[in-house]
């Protein structure tokens, strides 16, 4: 009996790699960063991460129940959104505001566009941008890293009643009797007082800042692990970093006292986390190789321009959101020419 001949189109070789496998690996890569965030900021950071992740999962579950596409909670992508959002918020951020951010991020950033694969922008950053606009004071209230007693007591603003104004943390911080606490992050110190914190402290994350953005070297290591496992496009983070460093370089050469060093630019704020884990969002970034580089350099240099000349201290969030917005355009501009196809002229490309 002759065996039936099966005719299929390419690809003929496949790897056993799926959406939820990649997403699970990203979550694994984020776990060391979460652990360091908890080690650095204590219970408050832990509660913050649990809140954002929990609310993000609940929101995804609710909206996938309302839609007819079936549940997409189990593909782990929403867990990444929740963790990333928690990592970008200040450690003492009130939990109810974090819940608002997670809800808005998943609902407005993802569910309304049709769920995973259809979101135009990174959902975590949509949520963060919303609370940045809604609660500008709370999201720029920083607390010191490695505060004594961080594993037994919470930052007072963490457990604010819903819809209520968070307690000011200044008195609590004064009670800690810390030396050299100015209430500013390295970025703000550099921008307003032109003082750079020591490079090693900054790279290792021994400074104040958002709960999971400070440890640049750790984030770099986790990102590299993912990149070597081919779970993210290495072009995007590297071109974001290159774009940021190369944009900062001429300003630093012009006036080293006023402008930050390129390595400070790379190690401070959310640049590292943004470059490795947010700009590289598979859905919201360009699909072509050349497009990925253009997109990365655009985000990196825009970040530096916002930091140096904008009203805000940090610019990576808006830079990535803008990059996401122009991503499809970059994709369509950089479509590779198919082998054997003559380059289209302007007239012939018109339908």
């Amino acid at each position, binding site marked *: 009996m002759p065996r039936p001949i099966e005719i299929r189109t390419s690809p003929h070789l496949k790897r056993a790699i799926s959406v939820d496998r990649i997403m699970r690996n990203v979550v694994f890569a984020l776990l060391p960063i979460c652990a360091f965030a908890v080690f650095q900021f204590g219970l408050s950071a832990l509660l913050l991460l649990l809140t954002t992740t929990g609310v993000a999962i609940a929101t995804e579950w609710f909206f996938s129940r309302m839609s007819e596409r079936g549940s997409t909670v189990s593909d782990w992508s929403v867990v990444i959104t929740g963790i990333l959002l928690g990592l970008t918020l200040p450690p003492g951020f009130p939990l109810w505001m974090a819940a608002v951010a997670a809800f808005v991020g998943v609902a*407005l950033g993802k569910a309304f566009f049709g769920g995973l694969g259809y979101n135009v922008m990174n959902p975590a950053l949509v949520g963060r941008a*919303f609370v940045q*606009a*809604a*609660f*500008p004071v709370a999201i720029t209230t920083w607390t010191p890293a490695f505060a004594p007693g961080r594993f037994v007591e919470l930052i007072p603003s963490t457990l604010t009643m819903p*819809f*209520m*104004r968070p307690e000011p943390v200044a008195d609590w911080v004064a009670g800690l009797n810390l030396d050299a606490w100015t209430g500013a992050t390295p970025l703000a110190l550099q921008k307003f007082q032109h003082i750079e914190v020591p490079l090693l402290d900054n790279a290792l994350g021994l400074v104040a800042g958002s709960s999971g953005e400070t440890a640049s070297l750790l984030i770099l290591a986790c990102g590299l692990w993912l990149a070597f496992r081919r779970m993210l496009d290495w072009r995007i983070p590297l071109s974001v970093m290159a774009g940021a460093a190369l944009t900062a370089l001429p300003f630093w050469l012009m006036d080293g006292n006023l402008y930050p060093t390129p390595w400070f630019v790379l190690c401070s704020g959310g640049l590292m986390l943004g470059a490795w884990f947010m700009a590289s969002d598979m859905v919201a970034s360009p699909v072509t190789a050349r497009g990925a580089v253009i997109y990365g350099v655009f985000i990196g240099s825009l970040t530096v321009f916002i930091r140096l000349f904008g009203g805000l201290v940090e610019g990576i969030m808006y830079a990535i959101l803008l990059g996401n917005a122009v991503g499809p355009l970059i994709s369509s501009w950089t479509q590779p020419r198919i082998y054997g196809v003559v380059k289209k002229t302007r007239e012939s490309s018109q339908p």
Partner: protein
Amino acid sequence: MAESSTPTSSAGKSGPAPILFDREENLTADTFLRGLWKENPVFVTMLGMCPTLAVTNSAINALGMGLSTTFVLVVSGALISLLRNWIPKQVRIASYIVIIATFVTIVDYLIQAVSLELYAALGAFIQLIVVNCIILGRAEAYASKQRLVPTLVNSLGTGLGFTLALLSLGTVREILGNGSILGIPLFGSDFQGWLVMILPPGGFFVLGAWMMLFNWLRLRKERRTAASSGVTAHAG
């Protein structure tokens, strides 16, 4: 708007044409309710988006804007309906604008006299009622073809629909943005306002949320009627 407005004069009929009210006119509850819900100017036909997004940052502003627009809508509609057989077709838009602008000027001075605070809050948007699509749309599509009483009823329904839409935006934005409603604080002094809700993006967010809710309700209703009619069809 593109359709030509041939005034439905009762030429050809015997006897003098009734100006105010005609038994043959379809004056049903729908004349009033259509503008309020089924053809709500904001949520369904999406007209007048500019004041909807711009002045709904508090309930009182929304109410002031909605009632002003309703007044202009009703009175200008009435005048246009009365004059519909005398306005030449070629210059009808200009004539409507003159009529509308007259009443907008009245409202403008009235609000300035009654509450300078509200006048300052509403700013140029009072004057901009002149070019509000809802009013011109009603004039062109309804008042220029109908008798006085149906026009009054229909304009009032549309105006109240607009006011309700603005209020639904204004209350949500004021509650979240200021923790108050019509200026009365609801949550005490410790309330944390959502700054974005008073700013222009809040208008887009709240409008989108309300439209999502109403579209969802409408779809659900359509699905249910379709399902029930399907069942009866099978049973029959």
